[in-house]
């Protein structure tokens, strides 16, 4: 009898200590959300390299009593890298090493398209404030319109860390939906004649320009906007690795091994912020809606400014490249190319759209820096 009692008490203790005893309906729903995101990543291939680890992190975050964020260990170290803004600049190091600023250097006027497309960020900010979010939360939500995951995470951590999961999921989901969101807006705002504009070939860019640009840009932007010095500094350092021609090993590591390792940590850690208490709130739906509005207005802003540049330049700029100003490198540039080709077969806009596309990356970081300086 004593043996039976001891056995029953032990089983009771194991059950009480297990995750099942503390499992809530909210945890169950969030695990389902994680599974849906995994489905989208693996089957539908929606940004699988990012959405995959985010989804799995979401599932892990909803196992009760794991102590992931409180007990020392790998998960806490990953969370430390997220909470202290370590991973987004490291991702930017890799992005810099992968980025060719040549089209931007050949045609600097396309920087204006990268600036104009940031209008989506601020329209979403306005909308969020009108819906009752405070100004810091609104800024973090607005940055979804920049279509730049690391910058969105960087800003959210500093201005609204409790919204990080929803903002990251919205940003990466819409980035993968760029080919569906942008074309109707682009077609609605342009005429057939505008879409058929053939752009002149760009001038060649010298190595001197390619090497000087990251150095000078890092100095100027970091002095102007210190809150994003880590982000822009790493972007330009990575680009210097690439363009210098004497740091190939560093460039290779930054754009491959390091970027992949940090992506695993950043995306898993972001997913681990999606616990039921923070995510299952009505605000999440509003954030997803505002993210869509931000993308639409960002695209529209770029295209409308592209139309202005088209007229001012004497029909030498195809307005379709304006939509690439929303970042989402290189997906948004590819969308400009596809829509342009459908309007006029043989009209190759990809190279021209890469200018505003990389300008959008800088523009989104500058918008984040401005908001950090003004609203934090």
């Amino acid at each position, binding site marked *: 009898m004593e043996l039976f009692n001891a056995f029953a008490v032990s089983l009771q203790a194991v059950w009480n200590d297990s995750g099942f005893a503390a499992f809530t309906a909210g945890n169950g729903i969030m695990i389902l959300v994680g599974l849906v995101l995994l489905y989208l990543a693996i089957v539908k291939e929606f940004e699988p390299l990012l959405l995959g680890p985010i989804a799995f992190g979401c599932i892990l975050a909803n196992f009760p009593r794991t102590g992931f964020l409180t007990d020392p260990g790998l998960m806490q170290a990953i969370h430390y890298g997220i909470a202290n803004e370590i991973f987004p600049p490291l991702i930017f190091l890799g992005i810099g090493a992968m980025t060719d600023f040549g089209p*931007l*250097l050949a045609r*600097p*006027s396309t*920087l*204006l398209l*990268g*600036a104009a497309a*940031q*209008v989506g*960020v*601020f*329209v979403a*900010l*306005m909308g969020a*404030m*009108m819906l009752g979010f405070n*100004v*810091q939360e*609104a800024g973090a939500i607005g940055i979804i319109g920049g279509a730049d995951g690391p910058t969105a995470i960087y800003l959210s951590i500093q201005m609204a860390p409790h919204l990080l999961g929803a903002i990251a999921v919205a940003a990466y989901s819409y980035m993968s939906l760029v080919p569906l969101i942008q074309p109707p807006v682009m077609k609605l705002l342009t005429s057939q004649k505008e879409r058929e504009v053939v752009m002149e070939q760009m001038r*060649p860019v*010298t*190595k*001197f*320009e390619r090497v*000087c*640009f990251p150095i*000078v*840009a890092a100095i*100027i*932007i970091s002095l*102007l*906007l210190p809150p994003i010095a880590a982000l822009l500094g790493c972007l330009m350092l990575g680009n210097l690795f690439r363009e210098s021609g004497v740091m190939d090993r560093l460039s290779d590591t930054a754009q491959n091994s390091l970027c992949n390792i940090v992506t695993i940590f950043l995306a898993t850690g972001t997913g681990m912020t999606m616990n039921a208490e923070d995510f299952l709130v009505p605000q999440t739906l509003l954030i997803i809606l505002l993210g869509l509005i931000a993308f639409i207005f960002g695209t529209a802003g770029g295209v409308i400014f592209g139309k202005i540049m088209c007229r001012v330049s004497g029909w030498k700029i195809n307005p379709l490249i304006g939509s690439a100003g929303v970042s989402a490198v290189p997906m948004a540039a590819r969308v400009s190319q596809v829509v342009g080709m459908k309007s006029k077969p043989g009209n190759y806009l990809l190279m021209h759209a890469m200018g505003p596309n990389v*300008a959008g990356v*800088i*523009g989104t970081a*500058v*918008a984040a820096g*401005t*908001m950090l300086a*003004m*609203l*934090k």
Partner: protein
Amino acid sequence: MSQPVTSNPFIIMLINMTVVFLVLIALGLVIKLIHYLDPTKPKVKQESAAPAVVPDPSPAAPAAEEGISPEVVAVIAAALSSYGYGPEQIHAIRPLSRDGWKNSGRVPFSNPF
């Protein structure tokens, strides 16, 4: 967290968009300045008073035998060019002799094509 400068959404939007435009315009000017100062950029060619005698850069066209159309010559030249051969390496284009034995010998090697 310090107090934000303003809480008016429209003013925040206006100020932020202005700053983004100003920073990117400044960056554009920097790019122009780098291009202007670039000592390695190719010099713009000066127009000379008397036109210089320029040798014809195009080598003599390969001799094609009669009966071969210009389209066929173009296709063969393009195919060879895609393998890295220049026009100066193509000396002549002529049909192969229609020797049945030779042709039957070539068949096993050209079968997949």
